[in-house]
């Protein structure tokens, strides 16, 4: 993943949003999905992904389940009810933030 602080802070929101769309996912699947949806421009560092997943789980936003796939167990993550609400909140917050940043960075727009 890009080293910028901006992206680092967004990792948990990316995870929440992907889980909102895909119901349940495992770690590797998340990295692949991000790569796919950004045409390979955003690559998540696995060393950051798992701590982020574990943190969200500790906050009660994610719940886990284990399923055997092929010859090995796999850990799946899904949103809890609290996680669903939090995703909506954080997305709204981000939308507002982007809107304000655009106003600040493109003053012409506000002169309209």
């Amino acid at each position, binding site marked *: 993943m890009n080293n910028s602080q901006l992206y680092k802070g967004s990792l948990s929101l990316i995870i929440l949003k992907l889980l909102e769309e895909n119901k349940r996912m495992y*770690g590797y699947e998340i990295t692949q999905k991000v790569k796919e949806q950004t045409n390979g421009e955003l690559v998540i560092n696995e*060393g950051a992904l*798992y701590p982020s997943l*574990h*943190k969200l789980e500790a906050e*009660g936003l994610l719940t886990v389940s284990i399923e055997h796939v092929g010859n*090995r167990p796999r850990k799946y993550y899904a949103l809890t009810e609290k996680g669903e609400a939090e995703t909506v909140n954080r997305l709204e917050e981000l939308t507002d933030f982007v809107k304000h940043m655009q106003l600040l960075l493109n003053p012409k727009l506000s002169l309209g």
Partner: protein
Amino acid sequence: MTKELTPAQIDELYAFVKRKGVDYYDLQLELVDHLASEIEQKREQHPGLTFERALESVYAGFGIFGFTEVVEKAHVAVARRSNKLWWSFFKQFWKLPRLFFTIALIGFIWGCFLEFGVRSVIIVNGILVMIRLIHKLYELSQKRSKRKLTPRTPYGDSPVEVVQSPFILQYLYFFSENITLPHGLLAVAFGLAWVSVWASFETEAYFIKEQKRLYPQAFA
């Protein structure tokens, strides 16, 4: 077509993550699946790639710290979750219907102070602490599984941790002759201590139930 890894190669991956300092089965399971998935995909794209070379390049994706950061932060996350759960159980003792129990317990301890004196109550507290400690030690001796899971506390599964507060109150014994605190306050302190033990007990039971569901292999 995805070329699935052989069971022997999966075992090799378990050995690999253990060598890289991942001691706990819950994390091993997750990381092995990640490594395996990515190796399978890499070898699908480059059929000539050997298992070893693929593993090397996948591990490089975890950055210079490898699994170290994942392990450290998993500890923090589990401890945090445990604390949150403990709080939620503890808070229930201050809401109906459990509030009745809490009040009754404190009232009972208060009554004992008045009836039998501070010293006797502290002695009984000490006996209860010892019983709980022995019970915990017995439990620990029973649960010797080959696969350990990430512990809930930074110090591992310490037997003292489960009886912390009443254990600390036990020190009052040495001053029991000249305690001037009102009995009501003492009763609240002892009541709180035992309610907190109960909450720890429930937290532990909750974790074990969840772990048994997710990682039955660790309890085999």
